[in-house]
């Protein structure tokens, strides 16, 4: 945008009978009010619940600091905080090591097969986190093929690896975040001018020296920012700690929150206190992250006119990097998907072996397809995802348009719509749980409650896509409409909407995909009649119904991968950054 938003006459509705409020367009006031109504009760009830005793009917009792005192005086809390930190640092380190390697090989070298890596991103956006974690438990568990191979190599009698441990959590979470890390780093590596590296080679430096001194150093600020981002994501993650950590007696803050609510009777005050602490930690980290990520772009601004997207010729070494690429591809996607398919085809899971091949059957799929609860949970999930996405996409499009065009006061819409970012999903779940428990009408346990919470949780994601989409529309396109005599409302409907439609569709798909993937919100809010796929998978694993879980997971992942593929094609077609 060369001419960013000259004075815009705040037309939209402003000339209507509604009088301007301090010159702020009424539409901005209306939208801001909606956002406040959605977000504020959750924040207020979260803090209230941590400071009041909860009575049997869910309403608040006497004021107390007891829950915070309990936290501080409990050794377990410090221990779990340490666990969470080690887990988050480890996951970030694993994810970034893989990400740097992948991004460098694909973007900066002439290694064959680089385009296949896109498949990693597509599938990883489609697969539910629960299923992904479970697939690694199947691979690394006691009867899993990895332990089998290790026992065969070393001749040991017993499994060597115990995946239900802190390092198991780190490996699994690290690999799960590798695609994100790759995606963000590849844009960093791609935007660097190849002549930076060529200049180093011409100075007499070899390939490794050049990678260390130039490529890596240029990406360093971005890598540091990414480290914080993944740290935050892992710190607030729930799936892996719940499925891997809890059975191995490794607790982190998010599982503490879950357990406080899961116990009978639920300790809402304790969950609230945990949540508030987590909220502050994540909030602080996000501020730091924002500062770093602004810093991360400082090296990307100076590239001359002679920009050439050249890659480095590795010669014979490219076959080695090709092999590394293939191995990473198998670890991130091939093996996890493979084991899920395998388990879905056998009557019982007892490791991967030739004998088991004879037992191959479609019975699990048959059972799942005929199961009523499977149909219900798929139906619920699709309704939940579609509803959340259908509200978020147009709503954020309007907010983003008002913000980008600098409508007076519109910045507050941007701030409000992105504020849920500081809520870890599990904290959002606790906060909305409190809201629904204290509502006079019975929302608790309904699908609508999950939709509302998911919607608020994924508002920031929608905002990011809508914002990027609106930025691409040049102001003059709208000015031309105004000069043709169209009112602001007409311009928005006839010009802005059609132009922003592709961005909205991608935004819709993205919100749909991320909201059906996650388990943290529905696990706290879902009732018997509002089960969703992620929760069904989670319960099936807890109850040991492994094979049917695999069949259901494989089917669902298939559907979601198709949607994810459509999302990627649209995002690429319309030049929206895919994150």
């Amino acid at each position: 945008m060369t001419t960013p938003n000259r004075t815009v006459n705040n037309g939209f509705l402003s000339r209507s009978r509604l009088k301007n409020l301090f010159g702020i367009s009424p539409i901005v006031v209306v939208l801001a009010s909606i956002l406040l109504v959605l977000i504020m009760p959750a924040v207020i009830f979260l803090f209230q619940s941590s400071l009041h005793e909860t009575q049997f009917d869910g309403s608040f009792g006497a004021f107390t600091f007891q829950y915070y005192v309990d936290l501080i005086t409990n050794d377990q809390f410090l221990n779990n905080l340490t666990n969470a930190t080690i887990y988050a640092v480890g996951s970030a380190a694993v994810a970034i090591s893989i990400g740097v390697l992948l991004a460098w090989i694909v973007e900066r070298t002439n290694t064959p097969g680089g385009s296949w890596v896109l498949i990693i991103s597509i599938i990883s956006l489609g697969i539910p986190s629960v299923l992904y974690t479970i697939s690694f438990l199947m691979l690394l568990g006691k009867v899993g093929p990895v332990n089998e191979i290790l026992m065969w190599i070393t001749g040991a009698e017993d499994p060597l690896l115990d995946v239900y441990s802190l390092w198991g959590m780190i490996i699994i979470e690290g690999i799960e975040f590798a695609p994100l890390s790759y995606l963000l780093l590849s844009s960093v590596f791609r935007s660097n001018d190849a002549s930076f590296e060529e200049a180093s080679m011409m100075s007499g430096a070899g390939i490794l020296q050049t990678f260390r001194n130039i490529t890596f150093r240029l990406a360093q600020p971005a890598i540091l920012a990414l480290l914080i981002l993944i740290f935050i994501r892992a710190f607030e993650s729930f799936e892996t700690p719940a499925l891997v950590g809890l059975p191995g007696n490794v607790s982190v803050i998010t599982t503490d929150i879950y357990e406080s609510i899961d116990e009978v009777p639920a300790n809402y005050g304790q969950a609230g206190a945990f949540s508030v602490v987590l909220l502050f930690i994540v909030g602080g980290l996000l501020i730091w992250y924002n500062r770093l990520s602004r810093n991360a772009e400082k090296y990307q601004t100076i590239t001359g006119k002679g920009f050439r997207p050249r890659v480095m010729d590795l010669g014979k070494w490219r076959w080695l990097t090709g092999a590394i690429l293939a191995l990473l591809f198998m670890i991130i996607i091939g093996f996890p998907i493979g084991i899920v398919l395998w388990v879905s085809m056998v009557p019982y899971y007892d490791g991967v072996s030739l004998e088991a091949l004879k037992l191959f059957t479609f019975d699990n799929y048959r059972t799942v397809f005929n199961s009523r609860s499977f149909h219900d949970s798929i139906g619920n999930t699709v309704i939940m995802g579609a509803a959340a996405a259908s509200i978020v996409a147009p709503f954020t499009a309007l907010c983003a348009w008002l913000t980008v065009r600098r409508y007076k006061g519109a910045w507050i819409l941007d701030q409000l719509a992105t504020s849920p970012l500081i809520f870890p999903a599990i904290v959002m779940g606790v906060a909305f749980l409190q809201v629904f428990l204290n509502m006079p009408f019975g929302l608790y346990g309904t699908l609508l409650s999950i939709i509302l919470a998911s919607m608020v949780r994924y508002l920031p994601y929608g905002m990011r896509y809508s914002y990027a989409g609106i930025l691409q529309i040049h102001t003059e396109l709208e000015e031309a409409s105004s000069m043709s005599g169209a009112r602001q409302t007409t311009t928005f409907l006839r010009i802005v909407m059609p132009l922003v439609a592709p961005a909205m569709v991608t935004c819709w798909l993205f919100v749909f995909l991320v909201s059906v993937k996650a388990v943290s919100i529905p696990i706290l809010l879902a009732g018997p009649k509002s089960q969703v796929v992620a929760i069904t998978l989670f319960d099936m694993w807890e109850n040991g119904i492994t094979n049917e879980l695999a069949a259901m997971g494989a089917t669902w992942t298939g559907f979601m991968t198709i949607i994810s593929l459509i999302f990627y094609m649209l995002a690429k077609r319309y030049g929206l950054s895919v994150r």
Partner: protein
Amino acid sequence: MLKVENLFKQYTSEDGTPGGGVLGASFDVANGELFTLLGPSGCGKTTTLRSIAGLEQPQGGLISLMDTVLYDADKRVNIPMYERDIGMVFQSYAIWPHMNVYENAAYPLKVSKGKRLSSSEMREKVRHVLELVGLEDYIERPSTQLSGGQQQRLALARALTREPGLLLLDEPLSNLDAQLREQMRSELKRLQRETGVTAIYVTHDQSEALAISDRIAVMNDGLIMQIGSPKDIYERPTSEFVANFIGTTNLLRGALNADIKAGNEAPVETPLGKLQCTFTADVSATPTVGVVIRPENIVIAKIGDDKAAALPAINRCDGALLTETYLGEIVEYEVSVGEETVLIRTKPTESLAPQDAVTLHFPIPQTLALIEKST
């Protein structure tokens, strides 16, 4: 010093058809010379340069620098770029933003093989080269705070710190604005003279090439059309392409009845009548020989003037003045002669006006007969 023989590197476009590249270029560069590869975009000049640097692997030919063979297709020799004794200035400068001025310039000394310098020696050397380019006051400055011209100087300093046997410059001035470009152009030339480094300079800007070079190789479609001093290239082009690419020229089509050797004169039948031409290359008898003459070499006079009477009778034709364009130090005239329009440039001393009947004279040494292409 540098020897390039039959260098061949052809790109294949995505649909499999052969694309641009170098299709057999040979030239020698003498010690201390500033040699320019000049040509339109896609002519293969950058590919040639990058092949010498080692950033591109040729498919055929030989490249040697002093006594070292850098690339030999037949003997399968290909020295990696970082072992070549070559410094390079990139079009985008490629100044590393995460290092300051000193670190950028010192980098080649730190990473290249060969004798290790003590830190004081290194500091001394870097300081010296930064002084050379006039950046001695900016040693500790972050490189992101440099202007375009300063980045350019730093890129040059970095390429020189290692005291390479050969300096490659890839369109180094194309990112600068016009005024700065002229200033840097003369500075580049001065620096090259002072350091005595042999340099290869790639550009598509003919005036830059004429101003800076000791010798120029004009390239087109992957082939070298002509190698010569700027004066040679401008005044004695051996092909229509070179005559057209460098400066402005009048081109006529004519018929030649005999085979003529380079250096001789012979008459050519043109739309302006028979013109006695000088031959800069061998031309066989053809109905479509090109006759070129630069606008500033044509003599123009008003019919009836004393000046017109004094003109030689040979290579004369009469026409009508169409337009006069006053450009300050020169005046441009367009004169119609029969079907043709001839462009003439003179000092603004003539008193001519449109519609005037004028006579033109084409001096024989500057009236050149050329074939379309020559290699």
